[in-house]
């Protein structure tokens, strides 16, 4: 409940979904088109500043993406330690027991890949500051075929349901005597497979019934469909839709000529 209140205060929330979609698309694309570390870092700064100005709570942000941040840190460490091993032209910065670890190239590559991942994660976090129903309308008003737009939206709609089912299966297993804390790694893997399988079966069944329900309610009976609500872009929304990609183009040339 508190989390929802914190979200509703954000300025990003009242923004039309299209500038947010544009920001996400342009930031993700820009970070993949170049391997310039400074450029990718500057994209990340733009995203973080946007999130902060937009009113995103930092602790909330950390809670939402904690697991991904840990994964990125782990990837950075592994890349840093091992990239460049066995290459004759690379000089290691650290020697342990006759083996060389940590190479300059490895650090740079790890930094670049980690920053790229961070850009993608932060771009995704911006999309969390909005309603799924608005993204559906935005995609359709951007002339994306409605069947594709629905695929995306229904996928997003089902994520919390699947998470709830996973929690239920996890609780059921615990109630029937499975103590996850006492399991060894192989046992844990086996137990998690036991959680995933019923969810997969249930998701397939649900998808099947959902498609039937959609057809019985006339889905795809017409080449187009109408919408009860319409999104209207205000001046600020239009300006930001143009401004976000323009910032990334500008930054590219700035970094290139500096």
């Amino acid at each position, binding site marked *: 409940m508190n989390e929802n209140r914190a979200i509703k205060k954000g300025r990003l929330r009242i923004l039309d979904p299209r500038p947010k979609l544009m920001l996400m698309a342009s930031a993700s694309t820009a970070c993949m088109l170049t391997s310039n570390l400074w450029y990718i870092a500057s994209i990340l700064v733009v995203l973080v500043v946007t999130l902060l100005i937009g009113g995103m709570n930092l602790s909330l942000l950390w809670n939402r993406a904690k697991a991904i941040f840990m994964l990125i840190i782990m990837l950075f460490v592994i890349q840093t330690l091992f990239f460049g091993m066995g290459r004759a032209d690379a000089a290691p910065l650290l020697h342990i027991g006759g083996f060389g670890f940590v190479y300059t190239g490895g650090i740079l590559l790890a930094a670049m890949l980690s920053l790229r991942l961070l850009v993608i994660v932060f771009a995704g976090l911006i999309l969390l500051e909005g*309603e*799924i*129903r608005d993204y559906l309308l935005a995609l359709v008003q951007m002339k994306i075929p409605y069947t594709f737009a629905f695929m995306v*939206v*229904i996928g*997003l*709609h089902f994520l*919390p*349901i699947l998470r*709830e089912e996973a929690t239920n299966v996890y609780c059921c297993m615990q109630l029937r005597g499975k103590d996850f804390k006492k399991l060894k790694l192989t046992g844990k893997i086996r137990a998690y497979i036991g959680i995933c399988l019923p969810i997969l079966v249930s998701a397939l*069944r*649900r998808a099947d*019934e*959902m*498609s*039937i*329900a*959609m*057809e*019985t*309610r*006339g*889905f*795809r*009976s*017409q080449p*187009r*469909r*109408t*919408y*009860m*609500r*319409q999104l209207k872009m205000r001046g600020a929304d239009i300006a930001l839709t143009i401004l976000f990609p323009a910032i990334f183009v500008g930054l590219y040339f700035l970094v290139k000529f500096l």
Partner: protein
Amino acid sequence: MSTEKRIPIEVRNLTFAYERDEKSGTETTTTAVPPALSGIDLTIESGTVVVLIGPSGSGKTTLCKCLTGIIPKLIKGNLDGEVLIFGREIAQDSSVEISMLSTQIGFVMQEPDHQIVMTTVEDDIAFGPENSMMPSPEIRALVDHLIADMGLEAKAETNPNNLSGGEKQRLTVAGVLAMEPEIMVFDEPVSSLDAVGKAHFVEIVKELKAAGKTIIIVEHDYEVFDFADRWILIKDGRVAADAIPSAIPKTLLERELWR
């Protein structure tokens, strides 16, 4: 326009068997399992409430899926006989699509969670009319009306995942009613509801009947619908009894349901 009164549902000698895929080595063969429905003949008049009763696996839900065209359009199997909706054959005619039937026959399935498509209550009710290309102001008026009818005013912008079982049930009914079908089919609508939810659903059915809708209800808890025009007992895919509720002995129903 024809003045002849059209019969909403006619089923003639309907037999249906599901198909089962069997794997032997690298080859997959499709075999038919024993029929779920055998020689069903049924005529349902306009404005009537019919309750289908029978033990689990007797073919009630299969019959509903045949009436709504889901079988054989989406679920394949061996089907013989005819299903006529307002005089038009839908089971054998390949040109008939499920979505085309949506304004004639609505189907509320057993699991509300499996048929709620959208992320807010009002959007989910609007889903059907939007598919039918209804103009936006008309959709808004219809949605507001149905939300009020179903007592969901306070939940209009709520995510359906956060509704109670009874509220989800009402939402799915509203979602189907929004298509304004002449025939409504409910598969075990009150099985997961408490006494208040059941009473509310009964009121909805009575209102629909008063509005001239033809209603088919599959339900184990048949006594809730003692006001129905007909109770039909389905046993082993066949019609074992078909009469007004008072004419069917309770002992017969209890014996068949609890055997």
